[in-house]
């Protein structure tokens, strides 16, 4: 299952928790951002999109295709916000965020999101992440 809706300043995606949907979601999100012609570091934005959605699908939902992951991104005058929600049990993100072993084979996604976003937080149980990426300069075509 994959549904996407967008309007002037918002894109929302609901999808089943399957790895193949991550590429489809990234493509839809990237196209949405590119069409807005905002001055943003697209690579950084795609990294945080990729890692937040991957965590929600692979860890939050254990790749269970009967589970749903929701993604909401909004553009305002200064930044793009990104929320990713899963319906899993969450995780103890606060204790893990600063313990990154560069040569470990997993656990790198949190570090990447922290480095490449301008703001990052979770809800208390850790199944709803909030991220922001600031524009390099304020775009004129958005939010008129």
């Amino acid at each position, binding site marked *: 299952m994959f549904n996407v809706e967008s309007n002037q300043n918002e894109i929302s995606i609901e999808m089943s928790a399957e*790895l193949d949907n991550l590429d489809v979601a990234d493509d839809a999100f990237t196209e949405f951002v590119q069409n807005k012609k905002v001055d943003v570091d697209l690579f950084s934005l795609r990294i945080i999109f990729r*890692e937040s959605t*991957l965590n929600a699908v692979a860890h939050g939902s254990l790749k269970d295709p009967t589970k749903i992951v929701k993604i909401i991104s909004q553009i305002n005058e200064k930044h793009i916000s990104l929320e990713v929600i899963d319906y899993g049990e969450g995780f103890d993100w606060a204790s893990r965020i600063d313990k990154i072993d*560069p*040569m470990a084979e997993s656990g*790198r*996604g949190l570090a990447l999101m922290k480095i490449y976003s301008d703001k990052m937080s979770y809800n208390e149980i850790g199944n709803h992440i909030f991220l922001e990426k600031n524009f390099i300069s304020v775009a004129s075509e958005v939010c008129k």
Partner: protein
Amino acid sequence: MLTAEKKDNAMWVRPSGKITAAGVDEFRKELLELVEGGETELVIDLNDVDILDSKGIAVFIVCHKSLKEKGGDLSIVTDNEDFKGLFRVMRLDEHFTVRGSNE
């Protein structure tokens, strides 16, 4: 997903498109088959790759560890400054070579 070619005693591998969670198992399998087949000098050329994620990066780490066990080396070749930055912020360039095409 990738092409492999022997050049100057090293096996050059040139994946294309995305190295991300959805397709990474096959990529990992193909690389480890090369290592198990006796290749010790492996060069992964990322110049046809559009996007990487943490699962893709993990494959390079697995590959690097397998090569090290055999006394070999991994090199990553990319002219993409974003990718170079990604390896740098993850401090992976301290463990294996990350360089541009002409370096």
